[in-house]
């Protein structure tokens, strides 16, 4: 008798919970679920921008991903995303960008967080000030850096020339050797504060008594960092790295403003945008977006699995 009431109670509470969740779920389905499903769907059709909204397109199966086209003269070639050199190049660019920029941001962010974790006068002010690059809209900071990196009028070249580091101005955003580096520099400048903030939050959760014990035992600070701080802060660090990696994999705005149409910095998102709007290949851009979504999803899953992260806890 008692168990039935309990389960009835539980059931009604579960029902209430769903009721309260419902508005949010509907909103999520409308603004995230529907666009995602439509993008995946468009990737299997031949929809262009002019036909996509009038439903005047056909199902083409996997053709956007892999298709053999016969030129009619006995020759033919494989088409589709998986065989598109531009796309493959874009995937590599994105991975390169993500690995390098997230690594740099993690190391620098950790250094900044450790510094800010210490007690000193003006800490609050400094913590606020360091967030400024993160607070500036990307378009603005990208445009600002574009001028600073300009080969004729830019301040970076002026300073480097003044110091005698370089003998002639470097065309940062134009030269293929430095274009990706320029994008990475700006991204690191912009997002290191974000990384530092997340790590700092993790650091502040650490129990003080372990450090006292280490101090009493006379352990070297470097050893304390690697043996105590790093293992303890690892979950927070991993979450920060995942956040940044996801962000980097869909990098668009910075590249679009700083080095537009440059083959050395074309990322997956830039490729998708070009196809969606510049080339009117809505289907192809959708397929690319779907692929990008898959890459990100797989990365998150493997991170959680191999990082033995329990995000729920």
């Amino acid at each position: 008798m008692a168990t039935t009431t309990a389960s009835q109670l539980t059931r009604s509470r579960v029902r209430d919970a769903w009721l309260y969740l419902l508005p949010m779920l509907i909103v999520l389905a409308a603004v995230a679920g529907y666009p995602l499903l439509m993008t995946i769907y468009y990737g299997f059709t031949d929809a262009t921008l002019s036909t996509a909204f009038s439903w005047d397109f056909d199902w083409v199966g996997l053709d956007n991903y892999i298709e053999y086209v016969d030129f009619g003269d006995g020759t033919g070639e494989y088409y589709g995303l998986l065989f598109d050199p531009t796309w493959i190049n874009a995937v590599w660019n994105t991975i390169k960008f993500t690995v390098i920029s997230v690594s740099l941001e993690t190391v620098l962010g950790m250094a900044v967080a450790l510094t800010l974790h210490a007690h000193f006068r003006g800490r609050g002010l400094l913590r606020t000030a360091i967030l400024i690059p993160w607070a500036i809209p990307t378009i603005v900071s990208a445009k600002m850096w574009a001028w600073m990196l300009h080969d004729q009028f830019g301040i970076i070249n002026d300073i480097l020339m003044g110091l005698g580091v370089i003998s002639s101005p470097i065309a940062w955003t134009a030269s293929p050797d430095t274009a990706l580096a320029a994008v990475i520099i700006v991204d690191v400048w912009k997002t290191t504060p974000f990384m530092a903030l997340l790590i700092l939050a993790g650091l502040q959760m650490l129990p003080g008594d372990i450090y006292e014990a280490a101090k009493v035992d006379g352990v070297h600070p470097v050893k304390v960092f690697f043996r105590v701080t790093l293992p303890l802060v690892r979950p927070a660090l991993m979450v920060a790295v995942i956040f940044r990696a996801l962000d980097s994999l869909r990098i668009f705005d910075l590249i679009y403003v700083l080095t537009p149409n440059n083959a050395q910095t074309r990322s997956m998102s830039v490729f998708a945008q070009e196809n969606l709007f510049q080339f009117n290949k809505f289907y192809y851009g959708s397929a690319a977006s779907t692929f990008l979504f898959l890459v990100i999803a797989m990365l998150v899953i493997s991170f959680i699995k191999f990082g033995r992260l329990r995000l729920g806890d």
Partner: protein
Amino acid sequence: MVQAKSLCAALLVGVSPLALAGAATAAEVSIVSGAVGNDLQILREMLDIWQERTGHTANIVSMPPSTTDQFGQYRLWLAAGNADIDVYRVDVIWAPQLADHFLDLTEAAADVIPNHFPSIIESQTVDGKLVALPFFTDAPALYYRTDLLEKHGFEVPKTWAELTETAQAIMDAERAEGDSDIYGFVFQGAPYEGLTCNALEWVKSHGGGQIVEPDGEISVNSPNAVAALEMAASWIGTIAPEGVLSYKEEDARGVWQTGNAVFMRNWPYAYSLGNGDDSAVKGLFDVAPLPMGEGGEGSAATLGGWNLAVSKYSQNPEVAIDLALFLASEEVQKYQALNASRLPTIMSLYDDPEIAEAQPIIPQWKDIFLQAVPRPSAPTKTSYNEVSQEFWTAVHNTLSGNGSAADNLANLERNLRRLRGAGW
């Protein structure tokens, strides 16, 4: 001040008994336009005239200077049926790709069509529909510093080889005299539509065809085209700054107008700005046709130009058409020629003595624009943007030393064949 005046006019109209209907139909329309130099300022001045005459209001929505960026935004707006924009300033190459979204202006412009150059009207006609009215046309010029050429005893170069030699010699001499900022030649080398225009001129003038021929044949992988790109690649870091690989029109003009370049390839708009009061090269330069290639077909200039299209999603199509007709009129084109050295599309203006006096480049440029080379937007149809992107990528790679001209062009041919598939 002008705004205050038109406000007064509107108020006066509002109180007069006749004008109840007039007040009700006073509409607000928006025109979207990219800009280089003082384009937007000139446009605003002309819109003010139109506002005073009609009682309507016209707003400018401004766009970034890169043609490529503008196109992506316009396509998006048009696909979404955006009613906020009534009139679009469109590039000469866009007509086939955007035709479906614009109103047919054939009837509205029937009286004035014969005044314009037939070739321009034809370029804006898609399947018998006049998609856009000509606003101004464009054909590039070789800007050169008369003072420096004279000082060092050089003639205006007739071929690209002469240009290379002259630029190098003057640059070296000037640098030896202590002007460490001077370069020989600047152009548009950033990876965007402008590089397609520049490179088409190099290739065409070397007898290397026009990327895709009118019959759809892909002609870009030829020894002549290889020679043209090799020549251009040799400029980077010698007579041209390395940063030219990220220069658009305004970046090149920035270097030129501060007196830091001997030669510049640019559109005629830079002529009036270069003679402005804030220009370091005022009165020190002149223009010539672009040089010829070695053993090529002579000078080649890429046909540019901008036109005015009326969106079919406009809520005030009649007012919008009226605005487009006004902006394409002889009066406005003359104003624009005098104040911004933009080439008119109305034939009679090339004989106008006032224009010849104020902007001598304009009558001089009539033949050049009449013989200008069109980009292959007609044969490649809706694939043009991708063709152009493939082309400028191959050129940009070559210029930045990323692969040889021969390899990049062979690769380009392969990509274009892929793109064409069974047919454009």
